[in-house]
């Protein structure tokens, strides 16, 4: 083999080995960025503590009609109940800045969870938006699924019906449930990413 050809081959092999390092944080296939946050129940939540379990991240804003569709239909509560019963850690994340729609105090969030009969593992208060920006969360809802090895296996919309109509919930394909079912069965996640739909996350203006 000519020296030049062997050299080129080595270049290609090196480039392929380097490729995974070029993936940005918070993309499917990358390790989920670690974070620590304060939950509305007073707990401190550290994502790395959940290594070994599936984790779902649910970006939330109680004033957004797309979130309303999921909660007023009872769909989000059913998902939380169904999957936490199977050992999945469900974290609802609230990244609205103070004064903006969806911002709530710990007490207000606890009252909302009780009223809605929602049972996430914890509701993490992120008013500075640092966890939101870490994941580049764009909408409410915006869903992530992380596998027990700490890798993001789904990033995107909650389902395939980008509307505010409650009537669209029953017939929708729920991407979160499908990803969890496929991964738990040892299969490849067929739809690892979709465009998340919803209202924009209300980050503080200071984060511009």
């Amino acid at each position: 083999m000519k020296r030049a050809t062997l050299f080129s081959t080595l270049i290609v092999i090196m480039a392929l080995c380097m490729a995974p390092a070029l993936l940005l944080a918070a993309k499917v296939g990358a390790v989920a960025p670690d974070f620590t946050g304060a939950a509305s129940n007073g707990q401190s939540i550290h994502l790395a503590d959940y290594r070994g379990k599936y984790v779902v991240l649910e970006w939330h804003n109680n004033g957004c009609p797309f979130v309303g569709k999921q909660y007023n239909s009872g769909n989000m509560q059913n998902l939380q109940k169904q999957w936490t019963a199977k050992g999945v850690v469900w974290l609802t994340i609230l990244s609205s800045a103070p004064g903006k729609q969806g911002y709530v105090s710990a007490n207000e969030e606890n009252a909302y969870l009780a009223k809605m009969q929602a049972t996430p593992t914890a509701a993490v208060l992120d008013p500075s938006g640092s966890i939101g920006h870490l994941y580049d969360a764009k909408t409410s809802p915006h869903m992530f699924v992380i596998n027990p090895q700490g890798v993001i296996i789904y990033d995107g919309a909650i389902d395939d019906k980008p509307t505010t109509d409650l009537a669209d919930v029953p017939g929708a394909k729920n991407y979160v449930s499908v990803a969890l079912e496929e991964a738990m069965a040892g299969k490849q996640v067929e739809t690892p990413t979709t465009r998340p739909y919803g209202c924009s996350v209300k980050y503080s203006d200071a984060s511009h």
Partner: protein
Amino acid sequence: MLFCAASLHADPSQIPHGTLDLVAENQWIAAGHGFSIGLFFQLEKGWHIYWINPGDSGEPPRVTWQLPSGLTASEIQWPTPRRLGSSSIVDYGYEGSVLLIVPMHATSSLVGSSARLAGEVKLLVCSDEMCLPGKTQLALTLPVRSQTPATDSRNANLFAAARKSMPRAAPANWKFSVADTNDSFVLTARLGRRVTRAVFFPLVESQIANAAAQTLGSENGGFRLTLRKSDQFSKPIERLKGVLVLPADGSHPEESYTIDAPVGKSAEASQRRAARFISRINFPITIVL
């Protein structure tokens, strides 16, 4: 001359923070002719609706038509959108007033002396603070006559302005190509003139990172525009479609063009990236070879 009593303007419908009118370009419909009607939105200051690709958040208006036999509707013709939002979340849409033209066609089988056009519009109207969904029924009754339709002068300006604001086909001698460089698409444009500012609006969701800066490299006779890929980008694409806006400069008013360019792998970019790693790490090995 006798006119059928018919409304050329439906009563404006209330939508969240605005009104929505169904308007006709012509005074009547003639069988065997195409014609245009429009969805005329007038929004309160601070509120917007979305383009066909809404961007990072929001949803475009969707209309379901109920038309008599003999009438068919085509897809909405979208005016050039604006960039909305913040530096971390960028959407595409319209503020203030906007007319969404809907081309229609009346076949020769259209019967009767008038036709009632109805549609249900589902939409989302948002401000920086919040989003409000809306749903409204619109209806417009137009006379049906055999003569070539005459325009309705009351709406002429509205339709003319909307047509002016639609992106147009690029001149035939302009050349566009797109290179896929693993984390970006680089749009190369050869226009035969210097351009220092350009903005690209992707037609399809989840291809371009909407909030990422679009860096422009100006060259004689054209430019290169780097468009970072979306976090949700998954499968390779063969063509990049969208709207290219050249903002007004000293010598030209704002121009807007539809783009549909082939995407090729950038061999140059892959070699450059590989060479960078090799030069840092592999130099001793290459000496041994």
